[in-house]
């Protein structure tokens, strides 16, 4: 079943690159991402942001998806979506 509302994609990605930060920096430079650093302390998962992508979109970014998918150094990636969270 599809969600009631489509996810809202934002201009950041989680990527898994097992070669670590140096390889992610190279990847970021190549495709214009900003490397915001590791997600977990093991240094395999990184948070990337792209300033050239609209901050909120109803569709995932086709071009960057293709770049990341074709890159053999990228084991996994996910364009981030907006999470609605409230204080209690």
């Amino acid at each position, binding site marked *: 079943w599809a*969600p009631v509302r489509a996810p809202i994609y934002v201009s*950041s990605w989680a990527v898994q690159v097992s070669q670590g930060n140096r390889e992610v920096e190279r990847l970021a430079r190549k495709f214009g991402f900003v490397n915001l650093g590791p997600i977990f302390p093991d240094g395999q998962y990184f948070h990337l942001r792209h300033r050239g992508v609209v901050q909120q979109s109803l569709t995932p970014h086709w071009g960057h998806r293709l770049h990341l998918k074709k890159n053999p150094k990228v084991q996994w990636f996910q364009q981030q979506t*907006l999470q609605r969270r*409230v*204080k*209690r």
Partner: protein
Amino acid sequence: SVVVPTDPWFSKQWYMNSEAQPDLSILQAWSQGLSGQGIVVSVLDDGIEKDHPDLWANYDPLASYDFNDYDPDPQPRYTPSKENRHGTRCAGEVAAMANNGFCGVGVAFNARIGGVRMLDGTITDVIEAQSLSLQPQHIHIYSASWGPEDDGRTVDGPGILTREAFRRGVTKGRGGLGTLFIWASGNGGLHYDNCNCDGYTNSIHTLSVGSTTQQGRVPWYSEACASTLTTTYSSGVATDPQIVTTDLHHGCTDQHTGTSASAPLAAGMIALALEANPFLTWRDMQHLVVRASKPAHLQAEDWRTNGVGRQVSHHYGYGLLDAGLLVDTARTWLPTQPQRKCAVRVQSRPTPILPLIYIRENVSACAGLHNSIRSLEHVQAQLTLSYSRRGDLEISLTSPMGTRSTLVAIRPLDVSTEGYNNWVFMSTHFWDENPQGVWTLGLENKGYYFNTGTLYRYTLLLYGTAEDMTARPTGPQVTSSACVQRDTEGLCQACDGPAYILGQLCLAYCPPRFFNHTRLVTAGPGHTAAPALRVCSSCHASCYTCRGGSPRDCTSCPPSSTLDQQQGSCMGPTTPDSRPRLRAAACPHHRCPASAMVLSLLAVTLGGPVLCGMSMDLPLYAWLSRARATPTKPQVWLPAGT
């Protein structure tokens, strides 16, 4: 130690100054000299006013970060409406200073307090995962008072990375003892929401805290659900007193409200328990909280006695948390054996959901296998079903010992036609019960007569241990004897009595991931030979418990691996590189990698800088691949601007 603080607003802190009867019994814990010393708590929220006069001395920059702006300063963004006061308020409940002539006092007034600014901006799975895995070897307790919308129609939970952050936290955080995630159960009472539709509070890795009023009533905002474990005080109707804490602009408030106010009180009480016994695992703490929560004067229509004789309610879990009882129990708690998980696929063929159906399954609880369970902890029902109006369907689970737990009650505002897609409902109500026998899942239409639906998949997930928890004897005092000789770094060299040395402490037993042995001490020049030392030393990283330091000395394994009895080793999905490599250097960066247990325990007991090591985790990719092959919890998107 401070027994009765002199802070001017302490007289307003009715929930801890004996004004309410019973109160949270915090004075009793303080009178034992406990104040959260050496414990680090981080509040994940909209920031923390680090220069607040009641917080600055306890503020810990290592336990803080700003993931909204990606800098180390978690200072809130100030606005005319003070919308970012929430984190500062929650932080003051935990660790506001004592006896400084200002405001009131925090429950753990000597604990170090950090803040993560992560709610004041775009929130994504990455931001949540990064926040929940900030400094897992330095921060002991994360307190979170937020979640998906409590509007009575949302079914939402953590994303794939955040779930991994929880998993890593409990398996690797705090040197392998497991990070403690304390969560506010939710404010959706007015919308008849149910906190089992919130994947954060219903996670087995979080300790979910509900609220009660001073009079022991269910507050108007309170959500009932089976995953709530315990309760602390908070606000009620307008005439009820609220919670006293620090506020933005160096202020104080006596108007902090909601379940947001309850979770930090519990986090502070848990900090006191952790100070009393720093070697408790994340599951030990949940066992302790179950035992230290009492129905007291809490009023609800659904108090029931479960199969092991404990009273439990969907509004309050096991009842009002008692700090005195919590620390007393913590001091004598014997470590819980490794967690076992037994999955029972009950139904995988489509079955029409009639107005009322029961699905019964005789369960052996994996008897005869390495993962057999004698005493339950969490129980989950993973369900995939369609339904014409989701909120009309009430789902219940009854254990072989006759305890009936409502997994989700009707939610009148949930008109979704999506059903539940592999949603995991959790109940804590069967805690310590024997799982063997017939489990009954009940599905009942409690709304529109013509509702229809189909159950596609039902898996029962049992978590627990091989031990009969109801028959265990009380252990000895954990820190039963005092250290009588220390070296220049404060590490204990000799205990007053037959205890084991671990870092700064003398312990009655060695905790999980350590083994006890006797170390011969050679006499130095001019000294007579010293008696042999009884010490706790580290197990190999692959073991949960062991009899020696080699990878073939394991006696039990962490949940991700299984014990090869003949080899004495733990076999599991670990990489060849998974052995921790200790590095005796101060952590150079705010996000240091996982450290070895000894070093983190030293940090706990000494209160000094955390020493860091390295470890390699199970590749997330393999896990992600599995998760993608299996549909996960549905994400429900709400209109913008809510």
